[in-house]
């Protein structure tokens, strides 16, 4: 099989990113909705090792943010050096439920109240950007992944039908696929969103996003799979198996579809980031999950405002996360392509 360390490395990094995001309750020091109204647009907390007297501490600590005297601008803060708040691991904080059942309040790290540790600063309500980034990843990363799953499943079934049976089925499926390809998908998503009821709970909004994005994108994988299958079903060993009386289902499962697995993998690696971007776009435009539930898209939406764009660099953090995830996915795609040496796309 595949023996490339690079592949496993990329997969490991991607998987850990998804796992961290999945366990956001634990890794995030705060709840995504908890507002600290005294410190909107606070810059990222500075971790100190040396106190004002010059003593070195093994355990890093943070200070309280205080508004800089004499300024009216939000985001102008100074550290209050009168009291240090050391960073602690495995602390108790906001309560949450594991898998909706077990109550817990353990967090990986935190500092004592009233101090706050904001690794990526705070947003306009004084909410922790880092915690929101992790929770937002749940929506953004998994909606991409799941939508890619929906797309590929649909594409596989329809592509296989079209490629394997040909004829009228092929014609109908492929004309539909062309129709879907020709649709301006962003406007289609707008239209679909407009038809849905106004207020849907965040989980439903998430599933809706997944379904809508996934269903719109089946056409491309379907076409590719059909192409692979068209050539695969004419191979000699397939014809031979058919001659021995193999059923369609057996042929598909045993001989034809395996030809498309490599293609499926690369398509998955290609589609997932595309669909993450689709979710981000929708949420950026206010059509995704609603406040206060974060997603990377609605976190980035605050950058639509000129003063945020020019004043608070830490509001770009979700964008950075997005870029790194994309790079990982595209690297994965490249490695897969080299390894699997299959169809060009």
């Amino acid at each position, binding site marked *: 099989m595949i023996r490339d360390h690079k592949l496993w490395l990329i997969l490991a990094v991607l998987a850990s990113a998804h796992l961290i995001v999945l366990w956001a309750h634990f890794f995030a020091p705060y709840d995504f909705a908890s*507002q600290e109204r005294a410190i909107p647009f606070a810059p990222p907390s500075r971790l100190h090792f040396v106190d004002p007297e010059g003593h070195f501490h093994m355990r890093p600590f943070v200070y309280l943010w205080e508004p800089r005297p004499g300024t009216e601008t*939000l985001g102008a803060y100074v550290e209050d050096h009168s009291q240090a708040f050391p960073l602690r691991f495995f602390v108790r904080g906001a309560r949450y439920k594991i898998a909706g059942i077990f109550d817990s309040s353990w967090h990986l790290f935190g500092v004592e109240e009233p101090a706050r540790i904001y690794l990526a600063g705070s947003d306009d309500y004084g909410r922790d950007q880092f915690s929101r980034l992790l929770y937002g990843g749940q929506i953004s990363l998994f909606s991409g992944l799941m939508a890619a799953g929906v797309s590929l499943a649909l594409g596989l079934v329809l592509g296989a039908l079209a490629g394997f049976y040909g004829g009228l089925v092929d014609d109908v499926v492929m004309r539909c696929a062309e129709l879907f390809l020709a649709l301006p998908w962003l406007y289609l998503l707008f239209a679909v969103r407009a038809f849905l009821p106004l207020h849907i709970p965040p989980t439903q909004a998430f599933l809706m996003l997944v379904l809508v994005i996934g269903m719109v994108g089946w056409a491309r994988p379907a076409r590719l799979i059909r192409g692979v299958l068209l050539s695969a079903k004419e191979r000699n060993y397939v014809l031979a198996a058919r001659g021995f009386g193999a059923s369609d289902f057996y042929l598909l499962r045993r001989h034809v579809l395996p030809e498309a697995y490599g293609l499926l993998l690369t398509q998955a690696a290609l589609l997932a980031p595309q669909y993450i971007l689709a979710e981000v776009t929708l949420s950026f435009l206010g059509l995704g999950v609603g406040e206060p539930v974060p997603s990377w898209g609605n976190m980035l939406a605050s950058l639509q405002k*000129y003063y*945020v764009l020019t004043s608070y660099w830490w509001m770009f953090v979700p964008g950075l996360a997005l870029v790194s995830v994309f790079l990982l996915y595209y690297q994965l795609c490249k490695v897969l392509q080299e390894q699997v040496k299959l169809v060009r796309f």
Partner: protein
Amino acid sequence: MYASESRKASETKSDRPNFKTAIAIAMFAIIAAGLPRVSAAQGPQPLHAGEEVLVTSGEPGRFGGKLVASLRSEPKTLNPITATDISSLQVIGLMAADLIHINRYTQRTESALAKSWKVSRDGKSYTLQLRRGLRFSDGSPFNADDVLFSFQVFLDPKVHSAQLDLLTVGGKPITVRKIDDYQVRFDLAEADAAAERLFDSVAVVPRHLLQGSYQNGKIAETWGLATSPQQIAGLGPFRIQEYVPGQRITLERNPYYWKADRQYRRLPYFDEITFLFVPSEDAEVIRFQAGDVDVISRLSAENFSALNNYQRARGYNLFDLGPGLQYEFLFFNLNDIPSKQTEEMAHKQEWFRQVNFRQAISAAIDREGIVRLVYQGRAAPLWDQVTPGNKLWFNSAVPRPPRSLEKARELLRRAGFSWKSDGALADSRGHTVEFTIVAGAGNAQRAKIATIIQDDLSQLGMRVQIVPLEFGALMNRAFETYDYEACVLGLLGSDADPNPERNVWLLDGGMHLWKLHRTTPPTPWEAEIDRLMRQQLTTLNYEARKRLYDRVQQLVAENLPLICLVSPHVLVGAKTSLGNFRPAKLNDYTLWNAEELFFRQEESGKTR
């Protein structure tokens, strides 16, 4: 009675040294553009004998130059009779004049085309003396016939003018009679406390240009943006020069304008005012910062702070005028909607109708937090509809309790609500309290207010969802289908006087937002507000009116049909070199005295 400052123009001196260059430049522009209109090139006409101009008190300025301002949307029309959108009104405001004007700065009425006026003892009849010798911007003379014609058009129900409602007093339209060429008498069906203020923004239009189209029943379609500038005339300081779709509208000096400065030189100072069409506030801010635009109004607090950092270096000043007349509020759907009502909406409305419930929500909302987070401190918390910016009508006796979750819980308990084991609030029948708040998607401030309220109410165990809606859709739900639960909205009073507010507070008012549709009798407090509003309308004495309106404010603060939240400050900016710039809290904030504005020497030499 109101004394006017007009003088006979025969006293005028006419030395204007800087003027020849301005004329030469203007000449050149006209020739280059190939326009046939001659008089604009001649600059302001000298004052002539018998012309009763109004002499302004501002600092004498420099003639020439042009001012660039911006509009967020294109004006839809130049017709003062039918215009309703804010951009059209702003442009028309510079091209037209009214008989009695509300000074945007002092908020009091002052003489305009009417030199003076007399009120009859019963307050029902007004006799206005018009200024003599005035001309429209096309040079044709102005007299009482134009006033008569203007009011005839405005009061014609077939024309559907926006002012018709205002000019209807006691259920009957005002009647107008000509006494002689320069005297007009207005009769009202009943005394109106703010009758002088009715004349503001009722533009006097030229009879000689519009009579034809009025008789053909086409007055509403005339004076569109495509109309040739020669066909349009007014009594404002500027007149239309050019409209470029998608880009700008340019106004040029009205050479016959009827105001003069202290040195008896005919205003306005500027040759031109250009409005660029800039689609968003952020784009506007960037252009202002770059120096492309000379004045900016309706700044948000965030952009104000962003601009503040560069104030000195870029040569502009920013002004925080304090709370204006706008008030932002939360309201619940209290409409009687049995026909299409679902069971869910029925029990939600049961909560909304309880005064204790609304009071609990008001007590739980962190108004100070909204002021700080949404407006960066540039707003005033509010407990009733009159903002601290409205000095004449503000009621300081209205209780202004600070945020208290304990009090909110106590109120909810009293109303029969209780908390489930997971902290969720439930009513006496066990329904969990959850509802949605709609807020305009285009208005970042309101969306933020809603998010803060959501968090505040979650601390009472209420599950609140926010639905951002496009503004048109929101209006449709609030005014037509009544398909909403709660809404965050703002209203901008056009005048400091309570009278324009009456459509909000009268039972049958068109802006009686929380209950536009009624099948049940009004509650006692609703009836009392209605009675007080009607009473103050016809009360002439200010103190007596103030007492009545104070009581209205008290009732609103107690019963909370609108849960008033904050009043944003009026924030504007202008180039440092702009002379006579006196931003006001009333709309239009910056260009209300456009005729007096001018650029001081140092700047204008450099840029234009």
